[in-house]
């Protein structure tokens, strides 16, 4: 036996191994598809290794794709930055458009009761050196705008009037806060007449030519256009009296604050004269 082992050791080992595995195979036959105990044990040993390997491979794959294989990322990043810039610009444009439409709706709702034809315009420029004196709007002679037409804010409050120059598609508006402006106004309750001029510097106005003997003008009183200047239709709300003081002259020193809010002046309405162009209530 020992001789046979010495002479045929390798073949005997091979035969033993094969027989062992054939035995394993034959043991499984009655079990059908159910795994044998040995198979379960081998699987229990190999499965964790396989799972660990899968984890390592997944981690390595993540490292590779996330940190090492970054070819084309710079170009993609540049493209995305361009896209972000474009989308931001688009967003700003759309927000402005939305705001303009909302302002237009608001303006139409407030101005329709006036019963006058008007055209809506966007403010496209402000006098940089004297911001309380004039603004530029994006409607002009092509839409029927002319000199001395009244300009209101989106809530129907007086802003100013069209002054030369009036371009085909643009016009200049003299604000009521300009020191060269003069609007004939009347106090809402006491019906005292006066001329409202701006100071051109602070955004406030002065109510001029109210006699010093007049005691009926009070702080907080609302000033409306009188219509006597034949420029502005009567009844438009213009300003509110801020302070009433005596003066060394024959007239009182009355300061008023206009109703329109300069920083929020984005949309204005230009009122047409009686029989003028434009479609009532339509921007």
């Amino acid at each position, binding site marked *: 036996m020992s001789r046979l082992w010495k002479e045929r*050791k*390798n073949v005997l*080992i*091979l035969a033993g*191994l*094969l027989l062992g*595995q*054939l035995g*394993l*195979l034959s043991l*499984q036959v009655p079990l059908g598809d159910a*795994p*044998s105990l*040995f*198979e379960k044990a*081998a*699987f229990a*040993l*190999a*499965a964790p*290794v*396989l799972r660990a*390997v*899968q984890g390592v*491979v*997944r981690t390595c*794959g993540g490292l590779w794709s996330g940190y090492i294989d970054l070819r084309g990322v710079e170009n993609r990043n540049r493209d995305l930055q361009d896209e972000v810039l474009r989308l931001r610009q688009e967003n700003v444009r759309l927000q402005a458009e939305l705001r303009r439409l909302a302002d237009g709706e608001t303006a139409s709702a407030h101005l329709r009761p006036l019963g006058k034809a008007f055209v809506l315009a966007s403010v496209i420029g402000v006098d940089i050196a004297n911001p309380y004196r004039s603004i530029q709007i994006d409607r002009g002679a092509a839409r029927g705008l002319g000199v001395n037409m009244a300009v209101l804010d989106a809530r129907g409050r007086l802003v100013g009037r069209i002054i030369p120059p009036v371009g085909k598609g643009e016009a200049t508006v003299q604000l009521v806060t300009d020191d060269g402006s003069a609007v004939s106004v009347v106090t809402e309750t006491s019906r005292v007449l006066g001329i409202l001029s701006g100071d051109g510097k602070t955004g406030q106005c002065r109510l001029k030519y109210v006699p010093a003997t007049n005691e009926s003008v009070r702080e907080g009183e609302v000033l409306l256009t009188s219509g006597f200047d034949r420029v502005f239709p009567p009844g438009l709300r213009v300003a509110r009296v801020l302070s009433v003081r005596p003066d060394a002259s024959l007239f009182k020193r009355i300061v008023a604050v206009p109703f329109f809010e300069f920083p929020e002046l984005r949309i204005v309405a230009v009122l047409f004269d009686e029989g003028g162009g434009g479609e009532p209530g339509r921007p």
Partner: protein
Amino acid sequence: MRRVIEVGAGILTAVLAAAVLARIHPLAGEVINPFVVLALLVGFIRGEIAGAWAGMAGGLVADALSLGLFGVAGIALTTAGFLAGFVSRKINVLSLGRLLGFFLALSAVSLGLWMGLAGLIYGRPGPWSGGLILVQPGANAVLAAALERALAGFRKARGR
């Protein structure tokens, strides 16, 4: 003991390679069988007994990781590992072409045995994977020959 560790490390490497192949493509394991490569290499380098043990261990692990009867791949790879050691000492396989042919033949024998056993047990032909499995002996042979040459170079460098 050293050979046991070597075979263990080889099996771990084969499991790793099988997992990587499966991650690359589900059918990649049909083209290259790392357990066959392991059995052929161990048999060629360490002799027929080590090859038979490595083939059996690798084959049983491969069987454990797949559905079907436990031991089919074990028998095929045990035979292939044994033959790799036994035959390589009887013939000249020094040149790369001969080595490739030798591994190709043994890999084909291993595949044939596995297919034959599977067909015998299940009573139907083994999985052909659309013929893709026929590429396996060639791919195994190329990989085994490349690894053998790399290991030989490594041993030579260490020997200096």
